[in-house]
């Protein structure tokens, strides 16, 4: 593999506390090294900005519901068409693009690692097949375990070790990376046509509350010492007044952190914009973003991603089936519901966020309030919850809103007047620096996901994932910022130049990150016995449908992260 030197650029590497210093970066064998040979290829990055490759901690890019979205929205696939080149396949789709388009578009923006946050365990193979078809970026997926019967069973029996053994087995079988909870216990309720709107209502039959599921799985997570914390999509999402549920859920989860992990949080709240609503009806709908930001400023055991809304024609898709049905009753657009052996649900509905729509405009302010109101950028990740708040290709616009108060205010003025009245966005005069942008687009993700030893920084030994942007480091011009962050000058993935001036120049296969958690074998056997017994009685398929075999069509380039949790017995 070629050796590379990136010379004279201004480096923004928050994990190593490098803030715009002029440094040379050396790359060899796909890693950052301290020196290379004399005949290394030189990339002159004078007056350019260098950051580690971007990491998206929450983006729906593969799996059952993404495919369902593509089927539901052929009209979306008509948009965003780009002809094939000698190297790339043709691209199409905006909110539900093809797998290949996803890989290319992330690479063009300087992102090199993406996590699919909602993998139904029984659809793990499907998810990995799609991820295998997503070129360039490294990726991982989080299995959905928040409404799983085995989890309920063990939590109810208070057998936390067995629950941990079950979770470990599930992560190993599905080649998952972290524990995902969607509307904990609420999805079980959806199987009966209901929903759970607050964290203390028990689910029918099981008599388990969302609070018990969140704290129980957080305990399991820390017991196993997983790199990421639990990744939670809270109850009561998408309803006015739900910011209280968010704070309650965050507050409920104060488990002790496993001392073996570097991250600070024990719970990650995802797309909090959708869970940051004030008011008590759609008429009195208001932002609850600053209330959440205030709370987060006072508490250190949480991280969150924002799920920022951008004005666009997009597709909402989530494992939260009842939410999608509710959305359909609001906007009357087409709706589809998915079910996977009632382990988890899903739904898809198109949605258009319009500037002049009061609800869309207020939603738009909430994500920005979170990003600007939370003082410590190490607690917050930039995301649109692609494609729920808008396609990920609109991240540059969000970066421009964060870096320029003027641009933010211009957008606020062009939006419905209620956005200004019912949010505190106009009072926030903070402007992000490039260093802070690097934190919320890369470093927070790397740290919170527990992959900061290999990703999200440019220190020696890190993966050589680098983004070089053509931007004056003092620039506050939103147009320049958007242009620079839309297309990198160079994107380097694993030591290879993959994009240059917005064109894909090579399409290597990305790696799949997944955990291999080892628990005590006798505990695992006991758990498996009970699991297979319950499974056989309640499921219509065979248990052998879970495991993702380590074969190239599922895992073309596996990157196994081994964890020893044999102390769990």
């Amino acid at each position: 593999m070629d050796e590379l030197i990136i010379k004279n650029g201004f480096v923004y590497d928050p994990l190593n506390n490098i803030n715009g210093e002029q440094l040379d970066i050396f790359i060899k064998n796909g890693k950052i090294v301290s020196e290379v040979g004399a005949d290394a290829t030189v990339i002159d990055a004078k007056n350019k900005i260098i950051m580690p490759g971007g990491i998206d901690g929450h983006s729906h890019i593969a799996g059952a519901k993404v495919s369902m979205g593509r089927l539901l929205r052929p009209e979306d696939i008509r948009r965003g068409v780009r002809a094939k080149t000698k190297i790339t396949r043709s691209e199409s789709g905006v909110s539900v693009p093809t797998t290949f388009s996803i890989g290319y578009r992330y690479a063009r923006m300087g992102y090199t690692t993406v996590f699919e946050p909602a993998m139904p365990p029984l659809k793990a193979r499907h998810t990995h097949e799609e991820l295998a078809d997503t070129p360039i970026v490294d990726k991982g997926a989080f299995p959905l375990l928040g409404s799983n019967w085995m989890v309920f069973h063990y939590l109810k029996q208070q057998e936390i070790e067995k629950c941990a053994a079950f979770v470990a087995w599930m992560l190993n079988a599905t080649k998952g990376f972290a524990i995902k909870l969607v509307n904990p216990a609420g999805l079980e309720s959806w199987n009966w046509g209901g929903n759970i709107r607050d964290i203390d209502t028990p689910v029918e039959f099981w008599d388990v509350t969302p609070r018990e599921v969140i704290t129980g799985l957080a305990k399991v997570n820390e017991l196993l010492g997983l790199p990421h914390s639990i990744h939670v999509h809270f109850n009561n999402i998408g309803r006015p007044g739900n910011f209280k549920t968010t704070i309650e859920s965050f507050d409920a989860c104060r488990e002790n952190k496993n001392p073996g992990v570097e991250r600070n949080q024990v719970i990650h709240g995802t797309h909090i914009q959708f869970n940051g609503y004030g008011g008590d009806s759609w008429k009195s709908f208001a932002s609850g973003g600053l209330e959440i930001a205030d709370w987060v400023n006072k508490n250190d055991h949480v991280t969150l991603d924002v799920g920022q809304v951008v004005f666009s024609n997009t597709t909402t898709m989530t494992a939260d089936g009842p939410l999608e049905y509710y959305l359909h009753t609001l906007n009357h657009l087409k709706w589809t519901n998915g079910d996977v052996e009632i382990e988890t649900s899903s739904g898809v509905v198109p949605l258009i966020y319009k500037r002049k729509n009061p609800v869309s405009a207020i939603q738009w302010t909430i994500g920005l309030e979170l990003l600007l109101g939370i003082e410590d950028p190490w607690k917050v990740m930039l995301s649109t919850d692609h494609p729920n708040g808008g396609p990920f290709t609109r991240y540059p616009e969000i970066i421009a809103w964060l870096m320029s108060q003027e641009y933010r205010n211009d957008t606020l003025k062009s939006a419905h007047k209620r956005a200004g009245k019912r949010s505190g966005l106009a009072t926030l005069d903070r402007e992000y620096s490039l260093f802070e942008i690097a934190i919320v687009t890369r470093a927070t993700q790397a740290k919170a996901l527990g992959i900061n030893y290999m990703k999200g920084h440019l220190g020696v030994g890190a993966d050589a994932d680098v983004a070089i942007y053509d931007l004056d480091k003092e620039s506050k011009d939103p147009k320049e910022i958007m242009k620079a962050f839309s297309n990198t000058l160079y994107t380097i993935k694993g030591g290879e130049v993959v994009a240059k001036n917005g064109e894909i120049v090579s399409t290597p296969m990305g790696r799949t990150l997944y955990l291999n958690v080892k628990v005590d074998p006798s505990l695992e056997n006991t758990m498996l016995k009970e699991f297979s017994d319950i499974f056989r009685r309640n499921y219509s398929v065979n248990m052998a449908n879970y495991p993702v075999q380590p074969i190239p069509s599922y895992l073309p380039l596996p990157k196994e992260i081994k964890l020893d949790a044999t102390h769990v017995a």
Partner: protein
Amino acid sequence: MTTKNLINYENSHNHINSSKIKNANEAIKMKELSLKPLSQPNVMLEAEIITPDNFSGKSVDEIKQLKVWKGNKEVPLSDFFQVEGETTNSPEETRIVIEGSIPKTKRVGEGMTSGEIVIKGNAGMHTGALMRGGSIFVEGDVGAWSGAEIRGGKLHIKGNADNYLGAVYRGEWRGMRGGKIIVEGNAGGEVGEWMRDGVIHVKRDVGSFVGVHMHGGKIIVHGNADERVGAEMTGGQIIILGKANEILPSFRFDEEIPSIEVEGETYEGPFLKFVGDLAEAGKIKGEILVLKKNNSHLIKLFLF
């Protein structure tokens, strides 16, 4: 809705585009560019490049070199058309005349915003789809999806139109949003699917599902209509001057109307007015108006 209201409704939906273009054409001298079909390809030709917008500001030689897709290969336009005539810098002054039938050339005039296209023969699929302005005149027949999702301008077809005239592409729920389509012959199924605004005239018969999912605008069928007129419509008007094969049971008979006026033209009745489709959710304002004298079979079903 009373007759008076109907007229008001009509006035408020006057089609600015077509009147504007008419006036503009009178004022400016059009420059004519002729495209003589040499042969039609064995596979479909994707020729969305043929619009006044794309041709204006280019020389004849440049136009000859414009690329069209023939199957999976790009070929110059001159492989299939002999290009002659004058060009201009403004699309409004450009008239493109295609001197013959081009049944295997798709998407002529797609997305055009102004100017004029005349096709002296039959045209292929998607003719004038996604138009925003200008006009297209076809002397022969057109293929399916002609005038799909148009937003403005005028598409006039002397012959017959295939299925999905002025319809919507798969998945989209916002169909024709303005402009005018006139077909002097017959049209196929699903005319004006998901239509929101504008006017479609079909001078002879239409197939089944005319105005399916319609939300607004007007469809006037001067001949007969096949089954399931206006299924799942929630707004707009379908006027049938011939015989409507059936009116769905999810429509309700509203009233008898003596005459109606559309775009300044009065159609003498009496008409039977049906409102529906009541199987849909929300406010239902869709109207089907059928000429009473040709539809005595409906009187029996709905009135007694």
